[in-house]
């Protein structure tokens, strides 16, 4: 399966429009300003490519990277060593090891090696990075920036240290730069729509919900990072070949500041935004650079301000975050919003044909936090095709138990078995794929993605190809009555629709069990009735076991086949709703007795 199958046609058109726009501007500048113009256009095209390399990771994952400029440096130096003419190399780098001497590779050959180096660098550096939380990861990229910078300065035999590295053949013409920019626009735009892009964006919007939809967040981030770094290293090589002579500081803080400012001003959530921001700031910087030395109006002289381009970019960045936090273009890609080729929803019959199997078992779960026993030897099972209700007053341990079942917390003792497989302590995305779909008490959707994308992500976790996943997603949306809103952003949905979208997403995992965490919270009686109807239809149509955690007694009594009651970390009752209703222990826990009221 090719990575671009299932990419909507509007992605291709918007990419082609951007390429045409960028090419047209480059041509206009080249024609208008002669040789200087060609230089300006080449630099701007390289900046477009560099910003898109950054956007491939940062835009999709939401983690701003400060390390990309240093990886560009790696590309520039590797390219320089490989492509440098033999005689210059002998004088510039006399201590170069034998195996690197005298290759004098052509542009294409050198770039191929550079991309390979970039992939290796990206894969290796991605491992530690993907483990960090979003804020720490940004600082982690900063650590990469420093490590690479220090290494480039230290590795004198390869790089001439902080001295100028010269003699790099200038092979990056304006045409080469345009090809790079065009290619990267295409890659970045398509990547966004591939399963990898969808998963990265889902994790950006809500990491916990992404994992609960079966997304291996770390793996996705590692892949996205590797692609993005390989792109950066490649464009770094071209940038080095454009400069001809450079030193490590050319790939340090000023460069990444420029790239990040360009990305943010245009808007990092879209490829169109990244390109627009780059073009805009490249123009502004050119003008400010002219003004940096001061301007003469006849006899009147305005003194220059050193660092004017930095000042301009800083102000542009502030203004953007203040007034348009999503950037100039916000969430929209440019181009006509063509409807995608109609796909038929998967027929309901083909869904969920797995035979009724083993139950979900909670076996002797004990959880201690220090001295506090939050859960004490809890056991019960959730059979297929039944609704199990879990209730308990505040502080009973319901949330802790849910977190353990879903793999967010590892229990001190005990096991969680899902459909016969021991899933104790497995990561949430594995638990999800193993057959547990869930919704959240405070709804967690991927707000800045469409309803269809929300549900498709979950369907993709069952290793369907993109087209099948989308058909399954359409079928689930239709089942929950949301078919007409497939292309709307989830963030624009009203409360009741958000609940239903979340259920649709959970069902697209084709789960054996569905965990609903307070599904009626915040609903009025009419909405609650509608929800009960939905849940009853799910139960009759799916071979699925439901575990419902709820405060709303009316709902849970009506829906449940069996109920489990927790209080203060202990299971105090289990049985049918009728049995529970009359159980004195349950009444005591909820209402209290005279004796327990001190």
């Amino acid at each position, binding site marked *: 399966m090719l990575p671009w199958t299932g990419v909507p046609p509007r992605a291709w058109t918007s990419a082609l429009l951007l390429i045409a726009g960028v090419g047209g501007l480059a041509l206009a500048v080249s024609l208008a300003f002669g040789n200087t113009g060609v230089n300006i256009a080449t630099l701007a095209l390289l900046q477009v490519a560099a910003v898109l390399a950054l956007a491939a990771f940062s835009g999709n994952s939401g983690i701003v990277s400060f390390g990309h400029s240093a990886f560009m440096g790696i590309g520039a130096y590797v390219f320089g060593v490989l492509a440098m003419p033999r005689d210059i190399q002998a004088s510039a780098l006399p201590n170069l090891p034998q195996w690197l001497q005298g290759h004098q590779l052509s542009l294409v050959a050198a770039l191929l090696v550079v991309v390979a180096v970039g992939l290796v660098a990206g894969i290796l550096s991605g491992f530690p990075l993907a483990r960090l*939380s979003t804020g720490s990861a940004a600082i982690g990229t*900063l650590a990469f920036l420093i490590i690479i910078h*220090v290494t480039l300065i230290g590795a004198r035999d390869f790089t001439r240290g902080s001295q100028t590295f010269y003699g790099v053949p200038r092979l990056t013409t304006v045409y080469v730069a345009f090809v790079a920019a065009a290619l990267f626009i295409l890659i970045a735009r398509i990547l966004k729509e591939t399963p990898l892009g969808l998963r990265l964006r889902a994790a950006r919007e809500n990491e916990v919900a992404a994992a609960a939809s079966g997304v291996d967040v770390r793996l996705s981030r590692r892949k996205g990072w590797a692609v993005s770094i390989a792109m950066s290293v490649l464009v770094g090589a071209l940038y080095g070949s454009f400069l001809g002579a450079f030193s490590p500081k050319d790939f340090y803080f000023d460069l990444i500041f420029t790239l990040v400012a360009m990305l943010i001003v245009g808007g990092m959530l879209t490829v169109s935004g990244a390109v627009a921001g780059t073009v805009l700031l490249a123009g502004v910087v050119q003008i400010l650079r002219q003004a940096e030395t001061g301007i003469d109006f006849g006899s009147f002289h305005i003194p220059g301000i050193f*660092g004017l381009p930095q000042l301009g970019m*800083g102000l542009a960045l*502030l203004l953007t975050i203040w007034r348009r936090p999503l950037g100039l273009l916000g969430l929209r890609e440019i181009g006509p919003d063509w409807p995608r080729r109609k796909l038929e929803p998967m027929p309901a019959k083909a869904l969920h044909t797995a035979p009724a199997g083993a139950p979900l078992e909670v076996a002797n779960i004990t959880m201690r936090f220090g001295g506090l026993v939050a859960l004490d030897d809890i056991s019960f099972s959730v059979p297929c095709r039944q609704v199990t209700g879990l209730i308990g007053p505040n502080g009973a341990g319901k949330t802790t138990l849910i977190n353990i079942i879903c793999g967010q917390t590892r229990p001190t003792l005990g096991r969680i078995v899902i459909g016969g497989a021991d899933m104790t302590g497995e990561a949430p995305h594995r638990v999800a794929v193993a057959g547990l779909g869930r919704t959240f008490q405070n709804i967690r959707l991927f707000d800045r993605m469409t309803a269809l994308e929300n549900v498709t992500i979950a369907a993709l976790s069952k290793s369907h190809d993109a087209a099948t996943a989308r058909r399954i997603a359409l079928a689930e949306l239709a089942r929950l009555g949301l078919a007409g809103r497939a292309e709307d952003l989830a963030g624009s949905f009203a409360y009741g629709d958000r609940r239903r979208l979340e259920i649709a997403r959970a069902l697209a995992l084709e789960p054996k069990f569905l965990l609903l965490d307070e599904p009626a919270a915040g609903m009025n009686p009419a909405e609650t009735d509608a929800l009960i109807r939905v849940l009853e239809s799910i139960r009759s149509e799916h071979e699925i076991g439901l575990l419902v955690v709820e405060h709303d007694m009316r709902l849970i009594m009506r829906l449940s086949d069996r109920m489990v009651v927790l209080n203060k970390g202990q299971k105090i009752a289990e049985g049918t709703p009728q049995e529970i209703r009359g159980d004195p222990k349950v009444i005591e826990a909820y209402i209290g007795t005279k004796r327990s009221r001190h």
Partner: protein
Amino acid sequence: MDIVLQQIVNAISLGGIYALLALGLAVVFSIVSLINFAHGELMTVAGYGMFFAAAVSLPFPFAVCAAVLFAVIAALLTERFAFRPMRKADATGLLLTSFAVSAILRVIFQNGISARPKPVPLPSGFAGVIDLGVLHVGIVPLLSIVMTALSLVALTLFLNRTTLGKAMRAAAEDFQVLRLMGIKANRVIAVAFAVSGALAGIAAVLWIAQRGSVDPLMGFVPVLKAFVAAVIGGLGSLTGAVAGGFALGILEVLFQAFLPDAALPFRDAFVLGFVILILIWRPDGLIPAPAARRS
């Protein structure tokens, strides 16, 4: 024996500066989730405070006060005019705001004062060495250790004994609840920035005591290190920041002392590589910040 003790003193004095800076970052981060890139510029402002104080021939203790005062004022100004308007932005937006503020301040220093280093005269006694039996300790490292210790004690007392300090610790745990208790958010945040500025000011004094000059980029390197320290310790955790600062200082001194000469230019790469290993082992840092994670 002598050398080992010597290195321990170096590690503690260097780690102390990182700890103060990382603590300043953590105080702000724990309350408003801002990773403040402009923290380094607060150091630079403090440095210029010392420079101006010396220029009008104020005695050294006043120069130190001027440094701290300048940094506190600068911290409050950036909070009021850059970060407060952006309060609705997410963590990434705030980070980028500080990134821009830092760049703008640097350009202002370069044009408004000078791109070149400005000398800061230090008392002549600073070059001296104190003999403690086997140990010859420079005045500056010793002062660093003393100042760091005093600052940490003062901050601990402030956080534990005063109402404002308690409010700040509560804010770090759960800001929303604190607001519900009727504490004014703006005041707590402003105090957090002021504390962070004061810590940056003290760190700047200690940093300048080692080099005797101030330039527009002075705060850049130490604050990069402080970021790393804050992440090793656990982003947003106050005790973690102190632990991370000392851990980083110790690592740097260790690598400086024990790396072979050929590898010395790569010292920072080795240190940060080691830091990455620490983070692979503990992604949330040595002493993670309390995070209420309810699903």
